[in-house]
């Protein structure tokens, strides 16, 4: 048996010495983009969150959540999403991944934040999202949402009440108007995320 042991040890040492020569196990250096992986994520809509989802995360004090506002200082000071930090895109480009953080970027309409998403993903960040529709969506869905009338259906009404509560939590003023379809949560992503119990 010891010749097998020696063989195993030799293989391990060989692989380890080669590893030391190679240095890093990452294929792409900082700033390199694995296009296929990013494209898949974008198609699967794993790249963004809705205003309602973000609001829920903030209210629930989701651990590791960081909300990043990439607009100008003056715009940030005028109004920003509660708990947001101001990080201009040029600073975003210098960030490095730190553990179990979940980053959500937002901009005015979402386009710049989407670009920031690509930057962060190519820097190796994993849990990064951008707010689809940007601050405009936040205003529309959280600060002054238009809620449908009570319909009598238990499920729809409890969703509507939850939405109203969420809006008021952030100091918003819900209005009751014609039936508006509420944004649907990305259920596929949520279902998979639920089975991914983190922990040891």
């Amino acid at each position: 048996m010891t010749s097998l042991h020696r063989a195993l040890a030799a293989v391990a040492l060989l692989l380890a010495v080669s590893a030391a020569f190679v240095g890093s196990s990452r294929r792409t250096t900082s700033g390199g983009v694995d296009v296929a992986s990013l494209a898949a994520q974008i198609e699967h809509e794993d790249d963004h969150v809705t205003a309602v989802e973000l609001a829920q995360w903030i209210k629930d004090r989701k651990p590791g959540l960081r909300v990043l506002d990439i607009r100008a200082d003056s715009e940030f000071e005028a109004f920003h999403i509660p708990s947001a930090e101001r990080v201009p895109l040029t600073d975003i480009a210098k960030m490095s991944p730190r553990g179990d953080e979940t980053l959500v970027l937002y901009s005015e309409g979402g386009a710049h934040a989407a670009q920031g998403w690509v930057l962060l993903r190519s820097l190796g960040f994993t849990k990064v999202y951008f707010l689809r529709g940007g601050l405009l969506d936040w205003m529309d869905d959280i600060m002054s949402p238009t809620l449908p009338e009570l319909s009598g259906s238990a499920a729809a009404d409890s969703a509507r009440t939850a939405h109203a509560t969420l809006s008021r939590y952030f100091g918003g003023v819900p209005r009751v108007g014609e039936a508006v379809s509420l944004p649907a949560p990305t259920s596929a992503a949520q279902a998979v995320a639920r089975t991914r119990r983190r922990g040891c």
Partner: protein
Amino acid sequence: MTAPFSEFGMLGPRGVLVAGFVIGVAFGACLERAGLGSARKLMGQFNLKDLAVFKVMFSAIVTAMLGLFWLSKLGVLDISRVYLPETFLIPQLVGGAIFGIGFALAGLCPGTSCVAAATGRGDGLAAMIGMLAGVLAMGAALPTFQRFFTSTARGGFTIPSALGVSEGVVVLGIVAIAVAGFAIAPRIERHAARARE
């Protein structure tokens, strides 16, 4: 890049659980094969007469570590999508020490106590029950220790970034230490067997 499979859409939530079960079966079989379901054998590590725990653990760590490095380097595995446990320096040091005390008392760890119980050992079952009680009690008491529990957080913090060296160098270091340990293990075991109690 095709792995982790679950992150590339090849496995739905149910697939992930099925995979977990199958992996668990293999895990349990390996531990049992190695004899680590026996508290007596496990404790041999501590009187130095039977260093099986060291041999099994470090062979496993080295194998998985080399696998991770090379699968990532070859572009098969996207290692950034593998869950890296967060580091909390002091809680993990203190928790580790406390864990070690319990480990030496029980002669089994959480995983091996399940192996022991599954193969008929009553002490394995007792350890499992104790574990549940301990986790429950500590979990319930956690709010009191919240500040301590979340102190010295470093997020996902790896040895290469802590020491400022490349991953490959750390891999080589660990493999070298493991192989050196494997080389002197027989000598230690012989010496311990000959020494008087």
